[in-house]
């Protein structure tokens, strides 16, 4: 690798610029910037008591929070590490299928189900990440897509879990021996708690020594190497962490719908997750949450308005990419 020729230098700089960060500001918001995500979490906590306590609204909010969790993990990868994965839905799917396969053999204790789901997805992310991270830029997008497809076809061939048709859970996961997650309100707060925990964890990780190296390697890998850091292990840990979070979200998703199918792992899901991150604003972790909530609400609202709601949704997506490069989180910063 001859990084000093002008051409090459351009390409190296290009590689980091071209993937994902979209000229986003630093991912270390000062305290006042944490006000917005805290507000969003507070609104989510109050929502059930403000007229959004019916089954329909709670289902919708749970979906938003679960996808938000996964999107925050992906935001850590895309915004924090500069790695745009187009196979992130696979980790969600693996989390969901972990619940299903344990359900099929009669295991439904959260103490087993959630750790298994997280570990399985993290392991997948670690193994595929170990290979994918040997590539960069657009090749990384492609190879994660390839691994996502492999996971998809594996899920579709699991005939004991329904193959293409999917699998309906016998029961939701039990918490402390009780069917707590069966109760919509309890489930709402479990999701909210985990969402807050995921956000705090990822924020802390970005603010740590580890996070500083990760972000530095996103901006200028050659400089970081010349200081003595090898970007690879840092990126691999970030992949694994994002994968584990995806697994957790997948396990919750399986519980929310009491159903899993290969559709969870479809590459279009990965595209949607990536879109949530970008829609929310790639420069902020909570952008993933904003994006997921906006996505779910928009999807719901449009599908009430019209049968072929994607006819409106698709163009909105395109317009958002064209005209909102900073995402929703960037909107507030126009004046400043």
């Amino acid at each position, binding site marked *: 690798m001859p990084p000093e020729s002008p051409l090459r230098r351009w390409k190296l700089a290009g590689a980091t610029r071209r993937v994902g960060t979209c000229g986003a500001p630093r991912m270390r918001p000062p305290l006042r910037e944490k006000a917005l995500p805290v507000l969003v979490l507070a609104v989510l906590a109050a929502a059930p008591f403000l007229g959004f306590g019916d089954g329909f609204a709670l289902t919708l909010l749970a979906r938003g929070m679960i996808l938000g969790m996964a999107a925050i993990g992906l935001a850590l990868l895309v915004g924090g590490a500069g790695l745009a994965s187009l196979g992130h839905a696979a980790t969600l799917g693996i989390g969901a299928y972990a619940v299903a396969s344990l359900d099929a053999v009669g295991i439904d204790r959260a103490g087993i189900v959630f750790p298994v789901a997280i570990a399985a997805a993290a392991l997948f992310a670690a193994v595929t990440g170990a290979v994918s991270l040997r590539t960069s830029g657009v090749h990384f997008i*492609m*190879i994660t897509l*390839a691994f996502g497809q492999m996971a998809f*076809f*594996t899920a579709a*061939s699991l005939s004991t879990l329904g193959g293409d048709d999917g699998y309906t859970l016998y029961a939701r996961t039990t918490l402390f021996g009780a069917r707590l997650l069966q109760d919509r309100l309890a489930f709402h707060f479990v999701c909210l708690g985990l969402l807050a925990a995921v956000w705090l964890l990822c924020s802390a990780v970005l603010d740590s020594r580890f996070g500083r190296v990760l972000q530095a390697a996103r901006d200028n890998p050659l400089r970081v190497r010349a200081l003595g850091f090898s970007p690879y292990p840092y990126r691999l840990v970030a992949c694994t962490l994002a994968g584990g979070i995806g697994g957790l979200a997948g396990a919750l998703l399986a519980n929310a719908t009491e159903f899993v199918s290969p559709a969870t792992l479809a590459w279009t899901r990965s595209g949607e997750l990536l879109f949530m991150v970008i829609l929310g604003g790639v420069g902020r972790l909570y952008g993933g949450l904003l994006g997921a909530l906006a996505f779910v609400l928009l999807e719901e609202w449009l599908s009430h308005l019209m049968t*072929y709601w994607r006819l409106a*949704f698709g*163009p909105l997506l395109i317009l958002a990419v064209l005209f909102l490069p900073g995402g929703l989180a960037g909107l507030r910063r126009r004046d400043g």
Partner: protein
Amino acid sequence: MTSTLLLVQVLNGLQFGVLLFLVSAGLTLVFGVMDFINLAHGVQYMLGAYLAASIGTALGSFWAGLVLALPASLAIGLALEWLVFRHLYDRDHLSQVLATFGVILTLDEATRALWGSAPLNVPQPAGLSGGIMLTSSLGYPAWRLAIIAAGLLVAPLLWWLVERTRSGMLVRAGSTHRAIVSALGVDIGRLFALVFAIGAMLAGFAGALAGPVYAVAPGMGDTVLILAFVVIVIGGVGSIRGAIIASLLVGLVDTLGRALLPDLLRLALAPAAARQTGAALASMLVYVAMAGFLCLRPAGLFPVRRA
């Protein structure tokens, strides 16, 4: 598996490979020349199939549908380029991925709205709807042979156009030497739009050819799109020669894998397990190849040299 059945599978693989080539050609040029990653390219394939089928049904002739689908695909390609894609050339790859993903959602849905979710009835190609006897006992659909023949015709022509003509040279140079090509008095924007439209037409052509063979349904372009990405990664981004070889390779591996793997695994596993793992492995085979190439030989089989 007898050798005649194997022959049938090989022919199926070649025929699939030809369709993949027609789709990959535009994708690899657009990606290689303009550094633009277009997920919506598969949509062109789908639209080609729908247009050919509807026009063919309306006019009562498959051939009329096939022929008229070409300019229609070209026009759609030009329109999309003008409306969406040209605003994305200067953006990062991630924005390109997302915006063209939006195009997929929109046009897949539009197809559903216009034609419904059920697979479409496709008129059969008059004169080529029957079978041809390959041996005294083995018939093979004439239309599939015609697809292979179409590929044999288009592939060298395209290769010649891109690698040997002045316009092809300009297209290839346009990516790395924008300034020089502009200085020659060539409108780069027009040139790119043209490449785009021709790529769209080829994909539409593939869709029109595929109509009588596969189910014409919404979303049919997505699978083909991802396989086309596999093709251009293996063949080398921007290389027509690479796209030819790699698409035949992918077509053959995918088809033969699906046909042979379950039987092969039966030697080692119980029949049910063999069928299940065989099917899973077969669907994965090409993606494994793609991951392997990206890791070990990211420039592909025929790396395009950049000055």
